[in-house]
């Protein structure tokens, strides 16, 4: 293992103040930070060193141990954590010459940047130096050691169309875990899902700690309004344009359902504009029982004819006459 002199890395003296260390770190960071040098591997490597040095020297306790024990300060931390009582000086004397090899895995972690940042900055590569590679352990491995903790729940919002809510879509999306790894999740949204429904995906939340179970992921579903269908609970409402003669004499119109099929709807003779026809079971599936469904209410919109020919106008006039409806002046040809 190569020992790095953190003071030299930051270019500060051994007795530098906390402020001087921070200032040196920032000055170097401005030059080598991966955010300002995207894609520059050399700057990235240099920043790793700078960050590591700053991480240790900016923490008074770590710095004190580092000053006393040099490369082996983390071994001492581990020794203390496992119940050792010797002072750093005693530890140094007792282990003199014996500890150049790999020490026990340490419980400390890189604290200056979060795991997300490290992943974001360096991708999958370990951000630790060769020297500390095995001492730091993998990121996150050493947080609070003994008590298994359930991971926290995550909530994410997902927007679906009304057609999707009808079909019960499966949505695929990528979540970035706190460890920085991206995870693709495929979730089945139940049929009949409502605006504001919370879909629980058990065990898909943040990972647990110390062997604890993962948290859950809640998808908060927003259902976008549809341009034709209006939703009222599990019922749907749609307008159907019907021409005047069909309204008066009766007939059939075709209505496209949300499912995509075309239904023939019988229009009884003398149907008034605004009449609502109910089609049982053609609405949204019930969320709790998707084999059942609400109803589809078809609202008749009578379309009055335009661009009448002279003959058609005469026919309307005759109709008015036969119904004893007086025509306004200029109303008939």
């Amino acid at each position, binding site marked *: 293992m190569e020992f790095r002199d953190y003071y030299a890395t930051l270019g500060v003296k051994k007795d530098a103040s906390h402020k001087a260390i921070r200032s040196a770190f920032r000055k170097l*960071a401005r030059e080598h930070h991966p955010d300002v040098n995207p894609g520059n591997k050399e700057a990235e490597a240099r920043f790793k060193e700078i960050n590591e040095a700053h991480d240790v020297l900016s923490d008074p306790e770590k710095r004190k141990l580092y000053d006393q024990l040099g490369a082996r300060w983390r071994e001492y931390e581990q020794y203390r954590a496992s119940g050792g009582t010797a002072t750093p000086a005693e530890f140094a004397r007792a282990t003199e010459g014996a500890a150049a090899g790999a020490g026990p895995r340490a419980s400390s972690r890189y604290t200056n940047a979060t795991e997300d940042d490290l992943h974001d900055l360096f991708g999958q590569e370990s951000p630790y130096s060769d020297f500390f590679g095995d001492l730091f352990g993998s990121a996150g491995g050493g947080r609070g050691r003994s008590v298994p903790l359930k991971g926290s729940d995550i*909530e994410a*919002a997902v927007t679906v169309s009304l057609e999707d809510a009808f079909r019960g879509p499966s*949505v695929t999306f*990528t979540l970035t875990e706190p460890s920085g790894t991206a995870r693709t999740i495929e979730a089945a949204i139940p049929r009949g899902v409502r*605006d*504001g429904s919370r879909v629980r995906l058990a065990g898909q939340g943040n990972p647990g700690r110390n062997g604890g179970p993962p948290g859950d992921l809640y998808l*908060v579903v*927003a259902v*976008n309004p549809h341009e034709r269908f209006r939703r009222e609970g599990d019922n749907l409402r749609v307008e159907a344009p019907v021409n005047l003669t069909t309204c008066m004499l009766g007939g059939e119109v075709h209505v496209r359902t949300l499912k995509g099929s075309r239904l023939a709807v019988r229009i009884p003779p003398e149907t008034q504009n605004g009449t609502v026809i109910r089609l049982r079971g053609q609405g949204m599936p019930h969320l709790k029982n998707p084999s059942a469904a609400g109803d589809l209410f078809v609202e008749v919109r009578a379309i009055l004819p335009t661009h009448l020919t002279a003959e058609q106008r005469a026919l309307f006039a005759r109709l008015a006459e036969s119904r004893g409806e007086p025509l306004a002046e200029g109303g008939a040809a």
Partner: protein
Amino acid sequence: MAEIYYRIETVCEVLELSRAQVRRYEQVGLLVSVDDGERRTAGRRYSEEDVRRLRRLRRMQRDLGLNLAGLEVAMHLLEQIEALRRRLGEGGS
């Protein structure tokens, strides 16, 4: 297909930021969150891209000691550089 957006609570928890910090970034125009009206469920929404941006803002503030004015300039310049790189990449291909 569905787009994923996060609530501010989740964003704050994951990034260890306070709501006030996120709001401050928004106030000065460093972050534009998706607003709400059309989604009809309460609160602002943050996309994965917003979360990446917030992470970068937080990191630059912490590592480089930039203040909000500095962040604004840095982000603007970085975006310009990225856009130019993309154009160069397109031109070269």
